[in-house]
């Protein structure tokens, strides 16, 4: 009980500290912090329109967060969600514009293609780690840059729709193949993908023997080897699953928002997902509320820009500050007397 309270209160406290520091920053550049907070609330959660835009941003973030959270169970720090999202979205667009059939069939094909491509991409980092001992954080980050180059090459070259003049895009997947909205709401179905994927991953990690084995690998690789666990397979699987989630995020963005793959996909959801995963302490269930919160902050960027004339990078600043305070707060864990069980 106290452990749970600690696990919740420390990140929440750190987020509050981040908001305070952001307020000080705003004060320094001559803006009223209270007005900024009010606008963040209003832009993220203040109206049904704000909620819709928050949820639309939270949907890809839940999926990209899993790309960091699942490998983290096995002790890997993977930040390759951005690349997996791009290539997954590209694969989805390529499949969606070329496969003919019932919309549901096309959508399933798109999702599968996106997950396979995204999963394979992140698996590269896992394989390099396992086979060659290459640090997975650096390799996944490099893979992001390679993915962006590959994405640009394909979108402006072989896969380009000749009709897209100013903004190179792939062929559109077609209106009928777009993911619809929840009945009666203006929120696209991609959110359901994220929620279901998070729940499944939570069950996998916490309530199956595979998840347990994964956490042993994360805790102590040598012990896992001695216990006869297939370490390489588990590492690759975790990376593949995480990459599949990020690829699916790309498919959601293509099939529910943009209708084709173009430069709009490069929106930083991959990096935001890493932040979400760290705040959620890599717990797939905690990813959901955290993604909602950060989605709200991202959604409020427009409000800040319109009403206070702040650059859109202010959201990036707040995210950066939040990341630092969350990490610094980790050192408080177990230090606060109130949380420590009496017998310890």
């Amino acid at each position, binding site marked *: 009980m106290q452990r749970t309270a600690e696990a919740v209160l420390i990140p929440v406290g750190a987020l509050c500290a981040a908001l305070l520091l952001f307020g000080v920053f705003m004060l320094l550049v001559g803006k009223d912090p209270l007005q900024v907070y009010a606008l963040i609330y209003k832009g993220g959660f203040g109206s049904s329109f704000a909620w819709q835009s928050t949820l639309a941003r939270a949907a890809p973030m839940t999926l990209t967060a899993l790309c960091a959270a699942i490998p983290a169970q096995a002790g890997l*720090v993977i930040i390759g969600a951005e690349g997996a999202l791009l290539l997954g979205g590209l694969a989805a667009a390529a499949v969606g514009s070329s496969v003919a059939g019932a919309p549901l069939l096309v959508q399933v094909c798109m999702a599968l293609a996106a997950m396979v491509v995204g999963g394979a991409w992140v698996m590269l980092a896992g394989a390099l780690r396992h086979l060659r001992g290459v640090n997975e954080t*650096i390799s996944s*980050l490099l893979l992001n*840059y390679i993915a962006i180059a590959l994405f640009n090459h394909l979108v402006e070259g072989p896969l380009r729709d000749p009709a897209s003049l100013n903004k190179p895009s792939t062929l559109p997947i077609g209106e009928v193949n777009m993911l619809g909205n929840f009945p009666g709401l203006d929120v696209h179905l991609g959110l359901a993908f994220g929620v279901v994927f998070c729940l499944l991953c939570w069950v996998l990690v916490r309530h199956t023997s595979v998840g347990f084995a994964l956490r042993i690998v994360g805790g102590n690789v040598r012990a896992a080897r001695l216990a006869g666990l297939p370490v390489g397979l588990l590492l690759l699987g975790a990376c593949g699953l995480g990459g599949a989630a990020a690829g699916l995020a790309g498919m959601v963005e293509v099939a529910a928002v943009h209708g084709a793959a173009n430069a709009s996909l490069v929106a930083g959801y991959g990096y935001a997902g890493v932040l979400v995963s760290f705040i959620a302490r890599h717990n797939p269930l905690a990813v959901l509320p955290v993604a909602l919160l950060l989605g709200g902050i991202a959604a409020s960027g427009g409000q800040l820009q319109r009403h206070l004339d702040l650059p859109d990078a*202010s959201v*990036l*600043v707040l995210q*950066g*500050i939040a990341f630092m305070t969350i990490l*610094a707060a980790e050192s408080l864990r177990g230090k606060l007397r109130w949380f420590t069980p009496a017998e310890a």
Partner: protein
Amino acid sequence: MAVDAAQALGLWGVPLAVFGGAIRASTPFIFVSLGECLTEKSGRINLGLEGTLVMGAMGGYGVSYLTGNPWLGVLAAGLAGCLLGLLHGVVCSLPRVNDIAVGIGLMLLGTGVAFFLGKPFVQPRAPILPALHLGAWSSIAQVRAALEVNVLFVIGALLAVLLHWGFVNTRVGLVVRMVGDSADAARAMGYSVGRVRILSTAAGGFLAGVGGSFLSLYYPGSWNEGLSSGQGLMAVALVIFARWSPLRCFFAALLFGGMGALGPALQSVGVTSGYYLFNAAPYVLTLVIMAASCSPRRTLAGAPGELSVTR
């Protein structure tokens, strides 16, 4: 005349442009990798130098615009980088804080603050750094362009030699290496591990900031949000490639700069397809080099013993 020369050079223009590009584009690599090398020698890795680089580019350009003196801009860029390095060093000194994760956070924070504060400087033109015309003897325009060297490049080259000498021959260099190789030994000798690492990270941040100012104050020579293409990040891999030797860092930086110049050079002689793929060349090179030089069974030769990425 220039056109004639270009035709006379023909395809030879490509290696020449790559050579010139190596000199021009390698300077940020030199500074960032030397900074990263210094930080890693003390046993800590700073993945956030990308943020530091962008911050330095913005700060350098802003101060140069406001004061009219590009060298003050370079100094300001270094100080901004120093502050970010200090932040990284202090946060990492807290117990149970992962230096890789802090680096990612710093990358977000540095680019965020730089984009935020740099908004007003996207339009105006700031005075930029002068070039040394080492190619003035030649009548061929491309040769002259390739031999236009910036003072910062020369300083970077000297710095690489100085750092190499310092690590081997000075007391400070020895202390930094000891802290990086065995924290226990350093503690036993009465040195504060935390303080040495914080100072090394701050000094490394200073160098990375200076490297960033080269981007905005010389080449490409303006400030915008797409200025850095991951040089700060590649520096981490570059230091591993150079096996933690400042001298090898310098040559590796030249190699990376040349790789980056390959795409535009080929484009200028008419090879336009695959332009984006050539842009990815440095990243692919880094990945291949890391895959070839790392091994799952042993730590890399020359790696500081306390470094988390190689353990």
